[in-house]
């Protein structure tokens, strides 16, 4: 614990900023119901009310409190992106490690499937599948997690490939350890650092991706408060010079910048001082 605090203290300003942003977002996501003055879907007045003492950031197109919805958005948008990324890592990471440890036709088979899936641009693929299965939160999470798992698979496999050839893995194999042991005790501990950095990058990607889909009206459905669809619903205000619709977009941007700064710092630390 002490060493972590020391690392953070010595981190560059950008990384400290990133960590502060992440902590703030988690805090808001957890305590959204306590912090928000109004309910998530509660209609509290006229639509498009300007900023005032009662409604700090005005109201949205249907007369819901903008500030409250912004807070709830932290819970919904970030939460869904996090679950999706975690699922993608579970599928892709596990498959990548299995492919590296097993080798042979298992590796060949999984790699070729991933190659084909990666040949289609992700957004297009997601739109195609969502148009067929319909846009619900569950299908959104599953589709994006599966598509992102291909990228995780690539990384996990290539990092693990480097570890599998080392002597201590060979020794474990000769000891007669099973595949599960090899993956969890020998390979995973030695691949965890790049995988954590990748988790940050993937989270940013998934987060932007879900926001973009919601912005297109094909992601998280109303009345759930979500940053992407909040921009879409209130975009008309921008043409009158009102910046409130930009706030949810800024919320997305700030978190992504924060996570990127932290990942950049971690990569820099783990790679020595390259680049």
């Amino acid at each position, binding site marked *: 614990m002490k060493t972590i605090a020391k690392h953070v203290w010595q981190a560059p300003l950008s990384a400290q900023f990133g960590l502060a942003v992440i902590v703030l977002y988690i805090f808001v996501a957890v305590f959204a119901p306590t912090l928000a003055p109004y309910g998530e879907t509660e209609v509290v007045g006229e639509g498009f009310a300007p900023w005032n003492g009662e409604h700090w950031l005005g109201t949205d197109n249907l007369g819901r409190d903008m500030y409250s919805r912004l807070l709830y958005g932290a819970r919904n948008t970030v939460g869904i992106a996090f679950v999706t990324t975690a699922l993608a890592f579970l599928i892709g990471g596990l498959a990548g490690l299995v492919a590296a440890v097993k080798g042979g036709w298992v590796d060949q088979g999984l790699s070729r499937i991933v190659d084909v899936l990666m040949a289609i641009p992700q957004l*297009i693929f997601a739109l195609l599948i969502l*148009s067929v299965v319909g846009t619900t939160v569950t299908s959104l999470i599953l589709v994006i997690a599966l598509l992102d798992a291909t990228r995780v698979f690539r990384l996990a496999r290539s990092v693990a490939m480097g570890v599998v050839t080392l002597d201590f893995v060979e020794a474990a194999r000769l000891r007669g350890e099973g595949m599960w042991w090899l993956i969890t005790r020998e390979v995973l501990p030695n691949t965890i650092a790049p995988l954590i950095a990748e988790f940050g990058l993937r989270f940013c990607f998934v987060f*932007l991706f879900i926001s*973009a889909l919601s912005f297109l009206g094909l992601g998280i459905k109303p009345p759930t408060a979500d940053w992407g669809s909040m921009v879409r619903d209130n975009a008309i205000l921008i043409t009158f010079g009102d910046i409130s619709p930009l706030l949810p*977009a800024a919320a997305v941007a700030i978190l*992504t*910048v924060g*996570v*990127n700064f932290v990942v950049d710092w971690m990569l820099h630390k783990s790679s020595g001082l390259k680049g």
Partner: protein
Amino acid sequence: MLSIIRLLSQRVALGLLSLFAVSVIIFLAVEMLPGDLAEAMLGQSATADTVAAFRAQLGLDQPPLQRFIGWMGGILQGDFGVSLANGREIGELVSTRLGNTLRLAGLAALISVPVAVLLGMLAALYRNSWFDRMLNTTALSTVSFPEFFVAYILILVFSVQLGWLPSIANITPEDSWLTVLERSMLPVITLSLVVIAQMMRMTRAALINLLSSPYIEMARLKGIKKSRIIYYHALPNALAPIITVVALNLAYLVVGVVVVEVVFVYPGLGQLLVDSVAKRDIPVVQACSLIFAVTYIALNTSADVLAIATDPRLMHPRS
């Protein structure tokens, strides 16, 4: 020379293979529907007879393999079928929009490629200077912004506050090219900004990787002038990674247009795709997806081909 040709033909064959696989996937996506397209279109209340008649009209009563061959054959002849939403020919619906999208992406590429490559090269040469750090932080932030955020900031500044450019890109085929250019200015700038950041970062990374290799170190130790190291030693080898970076980002750009087109109501393929997904007009979604995927694969394959073709080591094989 022979080895180059063999490598190149392998890459092209692989590209064609993935094209085929992708078209199979796009075709099969519809097969995943619970029930089939006819039931999904007509809804629960339709009688069995109506569904059967509609199925026959769509040709859904034939086995999947035969339908796939028919679909593929039609597309190769430029026939994409008809839209379920309005019964119009998809080919007709798509053609003008494809032109618009390609113009948007092309203009953005024209601006972003030289700027990004130049900035990336400068950042790599003067790495860890304040210039490099500033550029890097700016690029990292820009990459993190959602496209619609960049787009709306530009709208707020350039069309609402300054009033210089229109915020909606509603171009029609009758407009003069000057009007078209003016109206597509903001979409082009948005798209360029997003791509420049990404491309610059990748160019910088590729060059730094190269500049840290032993033979550059050797050249420096021999006391060769810095400019000579860059032009004669580094650049020929840097060409392949830079080309790869550019092509990868162009592929990204073609897909990135979707969100930008929706923000600016630009009549392109991306907007058609999003509208059709919302309406669940699946034949149109399939056609658009296929066009996007073909462009994407073509760009990625040409990236590989160019990278192989410009690799000096392959130009002068040892044996």
